[in-house]
């Protein structure tokens, strides 16, 4: 792999950019791998990356039915934060956020991590109490957040109308080191690093069956033939239930559409991320100047990556009071992704009823922020069979009543 650097840019400028090489190789499936990861989204690629980096396991294939990063990883609004309520969540989300701080250097790939600060508005008394509680929990967990006043909110985000008649801003939970990153770059950076370690990233290849023998995985059937493996990591987000069914088990997951939209680009007017959970909307400005807007999920099961228009309408309607400026903007694009939602709004990183199969899913509306931490933890789980970061996120926790209730922290999609 040729390293990217200022020197490389200068060198290439002098020779008509003829010296750049492919970021990752085009791979043909081999007959057998130590580990097969299904799904080349951020979580699957990060799992493969840390298998190689932390455990020296590099006979790995990442199999993707479409193109890498074409699932939710390339469709999200890129909010990164770790201000969750429960201890197991704080541990994995903060691990993840801290890995984002050094990801560009680690991968030698600019993922444009921008810790511009994330605020979650309190617009009801109930939310004030909820977020104050989260701020206290975060300080015990070693996650730096604070509850700030409406005046400070206005200072940080002057375009906001804090005394809206219906939902005035009463304060906010502020995480100064939260922010955004370039979603595609995260997938591409991991793919390049995996390929460099000799792993195969096989695109346009769908896993259509899972082979087992005596309760243990032996391989997968794909649209490009059978491939054997010792271990199988299923990291397919919205399609988790479909793949699990092929391996003979069921998951506590429902797949629903989540939509987002961007406005036409405008001059810089907002350098923080704002989430307004009561009215179900959130907003940030991209580097290109578009206002990036997201809201809540649709209510019904859906695999079409297409949502209902009235959700877009509701989201924008909600934001207009708090951000009057959006009322004048034209919508540029709108899209949807299929998110995998669990009963307690927390993910699943777990062994499964089949030996050698591990599942990573349930990140639902908020897993972009978790990509590096989830990959780190999942790699340990796959390599060693257990990981301190995944212990509480077992798929069997629902049977035991050990929920990790994040319905407040994840009450709105992000």
């Amino acid at each position: 792999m040729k390293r990217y650097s200022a020197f490389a840019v200068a060198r290439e400028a002098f020779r008509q950019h003829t010296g750049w090489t492919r970021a990752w190789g085009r791979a043909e499936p081999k007959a057998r791998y130590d580990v097969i990861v299904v799904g080349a989204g951020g979580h699957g690629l990060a799992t493969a990356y840390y298998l190689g980096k932390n455990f020296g396991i590099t006979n790995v294939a990442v199999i993707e039915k479409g193109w890498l990063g074409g699932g939710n990883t390339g469709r999200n609004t890129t909010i990164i934060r770790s201000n969750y309520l429960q201890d197991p969540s704080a541990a994995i989300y903060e691990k993840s956020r801290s890995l984002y701080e050094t990801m560009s250097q680690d991968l030698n790939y600019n993922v444009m991590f921008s810790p511009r600060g994330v605020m979650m508005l309190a617009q009801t008394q109930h939310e004030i109490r909820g977020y104050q509680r989260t701020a206290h929990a975060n300080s015990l967990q070693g996650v730096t957040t604070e509850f700030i006043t409406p005046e400070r909110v206005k200072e940080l985000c002057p375009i906001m109308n804090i005394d809206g008649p219906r939902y005035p801003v009463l304060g906010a939970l502020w995480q100064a080191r939260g922010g955004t990153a370039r979603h595609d770059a995260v997938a591409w950076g991991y793919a390049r690093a995996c390929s460099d370690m000799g792993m195969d990233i096989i695109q346009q290849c769908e896993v259509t069956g899972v082979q087992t023998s005596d309760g243990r995985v032996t391989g997968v059937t794909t649209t490009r033939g059978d491939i054997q493996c010792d271990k199988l990591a299923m990291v397919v987000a919205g399609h988790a239930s479909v793949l699990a069914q092929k391996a003979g088990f069921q998951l506590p997951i429902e797949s629903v559409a989540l939509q987002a939209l961007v406005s036409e680009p405008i001059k810089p007017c907002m350098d923080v991320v704002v989430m307004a959970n009561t009215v179900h909307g959130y907003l940030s400005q991209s580097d290109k100047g578009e206002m990036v807007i997201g809201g809540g999920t649709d209510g019904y099961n859906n695999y079409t990556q297409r949502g209902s228009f009235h959700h877009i309408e509701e989201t924008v309607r909600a934001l207009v009071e708090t951000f009057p400026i959006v009322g004048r903007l034209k919508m540029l694009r709108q899209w949807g992704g299929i998110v995998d939602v669990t009963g307690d709004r927390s993910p699943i990183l777990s062994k499964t009823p089949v030996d050698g199969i591990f599942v990573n899913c349930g990140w639902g509306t908020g897993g972009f922020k978790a990509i590096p931490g989830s990959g780190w933890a999942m790699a340990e789980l796959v390599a060693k069979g257990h990981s301190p970061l995944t212990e509480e996120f077992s798929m069997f926790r629902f049977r035991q009543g050990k929920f990790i209730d994040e319905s407040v922290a994840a009450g709105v999609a992000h």
Partner: protein
Amino acid sequence: MLILHCPYCGRDVDETDLHPGGEAHLKRVGPDADAEAFEQYLFMRENPKGVHFERWRHAYGCGKWFLAARNTATLQVYGTYSAQTTEPPHDIMNAIKEAQA
């Protein structure tokens, strides 16, 4: 926009007047059922990519629950039917068969 026929009102209803209620025909378990049965009832879901039987409530109308057969991969609606059933009726099953033929 999704439009479903409310079998009680006999009217076609816009999605904005409806409230989704998830998988239909779940068997409610009794107080002495074991943990696994409760897990099945409360959390485990078919979540198929294809035909899905599901509950809807005509929230801004008659207020009643009814059931629908819908395809989650194509958004095709095969029909709606009364919630007072333990399994999808024949005409719905036939409509599904016909559509898939």
